[in-house]
């Protein structure tokens, strides 16, 4: 029986969008009705949404981009010096999180991190001199260089970076090594202790860990993250399980290493003492995936969500190198010790790469321990994850959520669905202090601003074939 014939063969089962009265009238006849809670998209996006909906090449483009994103198999293979693998990192050049930004527009934590990095690189002898260099520094987004950085995301030429390579392709991505919590460079702190820790990371952590990684063999980060989700991580605000799993994987290799015993012990203690150690590596794994999906003409898949502390920016697979930005929102969060919302900087960091690949806020249901960020109930956390399925193209085949009967996490944000439904991505994130040098003040949840999605959809629509 054809589709049309089958419509006429039985009572219809109806889905409605629009006037409730018409759905009421169906229910009065005993007909099963599913109602969409339809709401109008922003007026500036209406024509673009129609143009994109009419162009049937888009669903194919999205499938291609999504397949590429999901095909990536991220493996941690090495730790090297940034300048050796990122050609742009010449002296005086610094990478940062989020969309492009000039020194004058940098927020406190990003300035603080740049000051710290200038000191670390030996470009200045003291804080004032380093701050004075600010306007002359060459700044470039991490995302332009196959790199991601949490919070301020500053990468300078002599910093060690982890190398994450695609086991199923030839992609590669980089991320710095996580420094821990509290007063750290990525949160904009730059005092002597911060700089000394960075030097230790370069001198001891990086080579010792690199030897262990090479000895243990490539570490499959995809499998590691999949396991961590089963153990209560979200992959963004909670990486405790992943960090523990990582230590188990390299433990024996570390024991068998050639570095001095006290260095190997210090490395073990450092990673063990930093629940967020895996965050940077999860981010690099995400970067590898979204870079594979980038550059698919016509695709509305979101490949980047990143913040520089001033602006929130996104990129789509189908809009080339363009960034679409809106003012960075303020995080709704819980605060450390004596800090409060008044101390918080607007949202910052490349770490929303995790949400872009189905982790973090999108995997909230997997992480009951951090439900404090969503009103304090596990039900709320599950609700948040379920909400994200409305704007994603797929359920992740490997990242699964036990409490949702092992359903895959909502993965692959479609910008047109965001604009059409008004459901914006939710991001779990840390909160940096507003003033340079303060460091971390809290953590919480933030919603991506819809404006950048509207702009992105309009740009994408300019290339659509209209009916």
């Amino acid at each position: 029986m054809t589709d049309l014939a089958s419509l006429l063969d039985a009572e219809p089962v109806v889905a409605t969008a629009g006037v409730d009265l018409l759905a009421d009238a169906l229910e009065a006849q005993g007909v099963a009705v599913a109602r969409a809670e339809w709401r109008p998209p922003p007026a500036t996006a209406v024509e673009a949404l129609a143009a994109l909906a009419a162009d049937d090449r888009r669903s194919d483009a999205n499938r291609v981009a999504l397949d590429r994103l999901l095909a990536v198999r991220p493996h941690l293979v090495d730790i090297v010096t940034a300048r050796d693998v990122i050609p742009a990192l010449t002296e005086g050049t610094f990478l940062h999180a989020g969309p492009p930004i000039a020194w004058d527009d940098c927020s406190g934590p990003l300035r603080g991190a740049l000051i710290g990095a200038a000191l670390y690189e030996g470009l200045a002898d003291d804080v004032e001199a380093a701050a004075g260099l600010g306007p002359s520094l060459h700044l470039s987004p991490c995302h332009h260089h196959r790199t991601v950085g949490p919070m301020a995301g500053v990468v300078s030429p002599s910093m060690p970076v982890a190398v994450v390579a695609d086991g199923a392709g030839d992609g590669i991505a980089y991320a710095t090594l996580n420094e821990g919590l509290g007063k750290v460079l990525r949160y904009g702190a730059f005092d002597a202790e911060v700089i000394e820790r960075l030097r230790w990371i370069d001198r001891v952590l990086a080579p010792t860990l690199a030897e262990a990684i090479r000895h243990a063999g490539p570490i499959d980060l995809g499998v590691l993250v999949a396991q961590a989700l089963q153990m209560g991580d979200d992959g963004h605000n909670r990486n405790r399980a992943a960090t523990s799993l990582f230590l188990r994987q390299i433990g024996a290799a570390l024991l068998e290493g050639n570095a001095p015993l006290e260095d190997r012990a210090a490395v073990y203690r450092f990673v063990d003492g930093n629940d967020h150690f895996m965050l940077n590596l999860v981010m690099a794994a995400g970067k590898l995936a979204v870079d594979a999906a980038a550059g698919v003409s016509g695709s509305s898949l979101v490949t980047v969500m990143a913040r520089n502390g001033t602006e929130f920016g996104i990129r789509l697979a189908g809009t080339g190198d363009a960034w679409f930005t809106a003012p960075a929102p303020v995080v709704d969060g819980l605060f450390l010790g004596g800090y409060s919302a008044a101390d918080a900087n607007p949202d910052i960091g490349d770490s929303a790469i995790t949400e872009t690949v189905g982790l973090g806020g999108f995997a909230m249901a997997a992480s009951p321990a951090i439900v404090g960020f969503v009103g304090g109930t596990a039900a709320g956390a599950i609700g948040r994850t379920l909400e994200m399925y409305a704007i994603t193209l797929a359920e992740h085949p490997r990242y699964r959520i036990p409490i949702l009967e092992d359903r895959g996490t909502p993965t692959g944000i479609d910008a047109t669905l965001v604009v059409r439904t008004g459901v914006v991505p939710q991001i779990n994130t840390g909160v940096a202090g507003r003033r340079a040098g303060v460091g971390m003040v809290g953590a919480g949840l933030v919603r991506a601003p819809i404006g950048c999605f509207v702009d992105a959809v309009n740009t994408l629509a300019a290339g659509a074939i209209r009916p």
Partner: protein
Amino acid sequence: MIDQVELVTGRYFDSVRLMQVTRDVNDVVGVEASLVAMATELNLRLLEEMGFDRAAVAAAGPDDLLIAIRATDPDAAASARTAAEHGLAGPVAVVGDGAFTTPSPHTVEAAARTNSANLALISVPGPHAFVEAIGALRAGLHVMLFSDNVTVEHEVALKREAAARDLLVMGPDCGTAIVNGVGLGFADAVDPGPVAICGASGTGIQQLCCLLDAAGVGVRHALGTGSRDLSAEVGGTSTLRALAALDADPAVEVIVVVSKPPDPEVAGEIERMVATCATPVVVALLGGGDVTLERAAASAIAALGVPATEWPAWTPDEPLVARPGVLRGFFSGGTLRDEARAIAAAALGPVAIEPTADGHRLVDFGADEFTRGRAHPMIDQSLRLDALSSAAEPVTGVVLLDVVLGYGAHPDPAAELAPVVADLIGAGVPVVVSLCGTRRDPQGREQQAAALRSAGAEVYLSNAAAAQRAVALIVEGSG
């Protein structure tokens, strides 16, 4: 000021939970600062930065719980300690039974996934309708597009997409459909039966359903096609597909096609399709005064071999008294108005449709100009009631109006109309009503007719009969 630093061993809590507890403790009146945290190096330094005495907990390690409180007085400190314990002891506040709620779908295709729907009924404002409709088609759903103000380009694109997927688009601007006895939009309650209707007009379909119902003939399907379907641009796509499907349905014994006169080329295609149908097809192309919905219904009834019937009418105890003047019509159904206009124009000469025109005029209150930003007059009669209550002008010879019943329509239109009708009759203006309803309509057709009749109006089930009666009164009054 009191500083109180305490170490609790053997209790572990996750950091986020402890941040919540800290927040709760900070909220206690008289608390200046607090830190409830596992005694990691990071948190111990935070303690120090906050000005607490770190030495007091020199032996602390990351497995110990740190509770530091700074309060204005001992009572506040004690309350804070209680708040900390309460936060640590109890379950985190549980709302309801702890069960999670599934978020509402926001698109029609997302809604359809929740009940495996096969038909989408879309009534969002016109500029948004295309996105929902194409989404529904790509999800494999047939579409009834109630929305108006959809561009013809979008209509063509939707119907092309539907044809490629063997789906049907009813609309845009499709007010009425019946699928397997289920009414969609404004639809009358019909008995199951052998007739299928395919039409570009909502109230035209409703009138046919009512007339057939009066003859005891049921309707299996009524598929709307959208008012532009038979234009050259759209090319009759939905009409042709609907006809083919209805012809293939073994339970359909007669098909009625009702439309405004089509584009000549499209008309040719429809004729060719009709010629190939195994099922008898009655074609009613409205526009001339001689093609009426009444005749189309009669033809269908005859094709079935059912005896012809007289269409019901309800006449008041006091007969209407003709008076000189012009015809004034107040309609909610566009096709009903058009049919009445064709009949009136044949007898009376020009009949205007503009609401302020002099002379004979028949106004459709369901037209776009009256429905922008408000509900259709079948649901919200207020505009029409206002116009009717000022209709008793000296120039008015007859008032003609329609009342459309069925699912989706006003639950009791006669209750609002009867007092206005009574006033008109009282002022000497004869009132004729075209009542479009079936015996099973939720408003109760007989009660509606009785209320209008009691108010003094003549009530006709057949719209053509009502129009003819109104014309006769004008002629009589001017004679």
